[in-house]
């Protein structure tokens, strides 16, 4: 069980960091926060890459390909759309 304790520790501590950081995000930025954090959850792409690259059956290769494609949509789309939104948040330029 001790081997499971380490990832659980990492998970719990990271959750606290997340709560601390994200509580400070103002409501004005909640939509970009959501799409940006959503892009971060696309980190699962690295698991997908390992799965797709190490596959030795056809089924595993197909699953890996779909996983990489899904996760990449999440990552690329998420970061780009967040950037597009944040670009619109302007200050001082009236008209």
């Amino acid at each position, binding site marked *: 069980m001790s081997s499971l304790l380490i*990832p659980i520790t*990492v*998970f719990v501590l*990271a959750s*606290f*960091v*997340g*709560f601390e*950081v*994200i509580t400070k*995000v*103002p*409501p*004005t*930025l909640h*939509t970009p*926060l*959501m799409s*940006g*954090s*959503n*892009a*971060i*959850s*696309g*980190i699962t*792409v690295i*698991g*997908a*890459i*390992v*799965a797709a690259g*190490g596959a030795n059956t056809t089924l*595993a290769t197909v*699953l890996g390909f*779909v*996983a*990489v*494609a*899904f*996760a*990449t*949509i*999440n*990552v*690329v*789309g*998420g*970061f*780009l*759309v967040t*950037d597009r*939104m*944040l*670009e*619109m*948040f*302007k*200050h001082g*330029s009236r008209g």
Partner: protein
Amino acid sequence: MNGTLEGFLYLVAAVLFILGLKRLTSPATARAGNRLAALGMLIAIVVTLFDAGVIGYGAIVAGIVVGGAVGAYLAKVVEMTAMPQLVAAFNGFGGGASALVALSALSDTGGDAGLRAYVTIGLSILIGAVTFSGSFVAFGKLQGVLPGRPVSFPGQVAADLALAATAVIGIILLGVGGLHTWAWIIMAAALVLGVTRTLPIGGADMPVVISLLNSASGLAASAAGFVIDSNALIISGALVGASGLILTNIMVKAMNRTLRNVLFSAFGGTTAAPGATDDIDKITRSASADDVAVTLGYAERVIVVPGYGLAVAQAQHVLRELAQLLEDRGVDVRYAIHPVAGRMPGHMNVLLAEADVDYDRLHDLEDVNGDFPSTDVALVVGANDVVNPSAREDPTSPIHGMPILDVDRARNVIVVKRSLSPGFAGIDNPLFYNDNTLMFFADAKAGLAEVVSAVKEL
């Protein structure tokens, strides 16, 4: 690449995610923060491509090319009003990817992976698949492909419980026996559960659902991290899980609901019985565009309260034009944004930012509520329940206790609305019958355009 260096670079990526999120605490630094997080992701991906376990690049390159093209296209063409469904879809893809990572880790185990590996794989499939199907149902509701009203059927709760039990038993049996068939059964049960759990939730409750699914997509990534022993996944997933939970909590509070109530009561989106308005002695003061223009044009301080009706009517640009005209006349114009003004947290702020409204003029409920008594005109456009004083004053009201914008305390209130029809909560709004309220019955876009020309004539 050697394992220690690899681990260190993943840590760098995780730190960049945290620093990126920290910069999202201010609109001035947010864009740089998002880019920092994207840089972290790039580092993580490049490191993984050099992973010793990667022997063939065909499927990887194909997946990245296809996924990158689809993601970039969607991000480029999406209308800001459609942001909630896009985020829902992205959540779904992320959850689906996590479930697939776990499935494929299973096929690598060869049948003797041990209890821990099987249980984490099962959990990861469950969370990922529920996120996937739930997100696409939410997408369908928001996009109008599926009915926005709550869809429920007899025995729904029993069916949900049976599905959840199947998934849990499947995880246990997968853990004990390692039979791969169970993984597919867990997957199937989870996919159906995501659908049956999201269908009964109404369109108006979607801000809660999207926040919750956002959290779930993070947890799915974390679970996948447990499967493949990756701290990068565990940390990033936990950050997102926390973020989604915080937003869920904010949304639930802003709607005066409990999470349980949102998930299980099939409440939102029930447009009330049309006869709900009692007809006794309720007189509204109806105004013309010229009256509205005069009231606004000669005010000193105006607070605009936009609601979802504004976005539906695509009136944010003409609203901004009106605000600009008023500012040119020396009127101080600010915006008060209720947390559930849009279809997802912060949605209205994005819509106004798109219409070039300075973010310093956008104020949260807590910041702005004390300012209404010293405000000459509160201009309510397309909002209803969030400005209903019954929430504050009438203990028998279904929305009693919901935080509202106290527009009724302003000297004058102008409500731009098509008719007296009630909002999502299906209740009458006493604000419309107050002596200091002027009703301007019009479509938000056409009505505000008339006011714009009338202000120009002043």
